[in-house]
């Protein structure tokens, strides 16, 4: 049985992520865990994240971090929101923090412009920049649910963008890693479709 580990490093609400995965799972086992040994045995990794990035990185303790980094070298990995941001090089949130440097790009404050509200909160369209298995059965320019104040504006790993004043990178992908700024677990049917695609994805 394929084991999907949802990494629980004590930040945020993992309930909705695991419920969404369970909703679309057929034979897969969904495990919410902070135990390095359990994570080691997982076939796929989901890295959620909610709240301030510094707290997330701090809560992501050394042993948990090393086992996760080891696995995300080759196991299919889905990173969500601050989970995505943690995989980039750095973030200017909380006075500037170094991140895990797995994907290309930096996190900056969403540029202020006249007609936008920050946080970027609500449903917005994603515009595909490149094809990906995880976009299966998801039309280009579909709406997904966002809630964030910091963002990535440019990355060589970008695979979709979303306009909120500026063009923000809404998904990144590289080899076995797929990372999204939006919350598929809050994006109704298309969000569930994305989780389904992740379960079906073989790298």
């Amino acid at each position, binding site marked *: 049985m394929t084991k999907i580990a949802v990494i629980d490093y004590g930040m*945020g*609400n993992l*309930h*909705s992520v695991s*419920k*969404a995965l369970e*909703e679309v799972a057929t034979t897969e086992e969904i495990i919410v865990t902070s135990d390095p040994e359990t994570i080691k045995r997982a076939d796929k990794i989901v890295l959620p994240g*909610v*709240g*301030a990035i510094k707290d997330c990185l701090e809560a992501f303790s050394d042993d948990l971090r090393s086992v996760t980094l080891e696995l995300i070298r080759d196991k299919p990995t889905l990173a969500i929101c601050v989970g995505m941001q943690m995989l980039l090089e750095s973030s200017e949130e909380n006075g500037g923090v170094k991140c895990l440097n797995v994907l290309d790009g930096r996190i900056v404050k969403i540029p*202020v412009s006249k*007609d*936008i*509200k*920050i*946080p*970027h*909160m*609500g*449903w*917005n*369209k994603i515009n595909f920049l490149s094809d990906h298995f995880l976009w299966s059965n998801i039309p280009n320019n579909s*709406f997904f*649910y*966002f*809630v*964030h*104040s910091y963002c990535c504006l440019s990355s060589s790993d970008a695979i979709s963008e979303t*306009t*909120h*004043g500026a063009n923000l990178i809404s998904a990144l992908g590289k080899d076995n890693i797929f990372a999204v700024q939006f*919350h598929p*677990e*809050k*994006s*109704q*049917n298309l*969000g*569930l479709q994305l989780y389904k695609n992740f379960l079906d994805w073989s790298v």
Partner: protein
Amino acid sequence: MTVAKRIIPCLDVDKGRVVKGVNFVNIQDAGDPVEIAKRYDDQGADELTMLDITASNETRETTYKTVESIAGQVFIPLTVGGGVRTTKDIKRLLRSGADKVSINTAAVNNPDFIKEAADKFGSQCIVVAVDAKAADETFSSWEVVTYGGRERTGIDVIEWVNTVKEHGAGEILLTSMDRDGTKEGFDNKLTKAVSSSVSIPIIASGGVGTLQHLVDGIKEGGAEAVLAASIFHFSEFTVQEAKQAMLESGLEVRN
């Protein structure tokens, strides 16, 4: 193109049951919040808000269970409010599956509670509910009220929403207590005054009777989202119809 304007049906829940006569057809249990939440989800609601109107300590466990059942079956954002007083309350609600928690009286009594909550859980999940009443007959300035409008606080709404934002609230749920229950439409002057003075999203609430009212709340009030209870509860309109009306008036909605 930017973020779509949101329609948020609100469920008033008392001891685990939806109150205010729900009138859906083909629904087995009209008082069951989970069934109703699913119905709104099917209709294309962008978010749901659940208000625990009793919010007493005795019924708290029921509320957590209700939140858990809704969150397990409905995959759109869920805000829960009513009687949220401590960070422990917030933690329990978030762990039960709420995405955002709405704070009202506790914030007025102690504005630092907003900061404490935002620091601990992130601004994105802290909604401050602001109940406003016109300060005089000119309806050009507003006062924050508590306890369903029974208690005036003397706090100016515009000053208060700025304080709320500075303390880290991620969103404001703005209810006109002059309009609540009247079906005369939002107090768009109030909404406009608030939405143009703070940069965080505003949800307009209180007074919706027609679909045009929803449109006006966004176009005239400058709200990012509109909340309504009774027009959807009594099946006067569906969420789809509301979205259609917004679309026809040129607003961007999720379809």
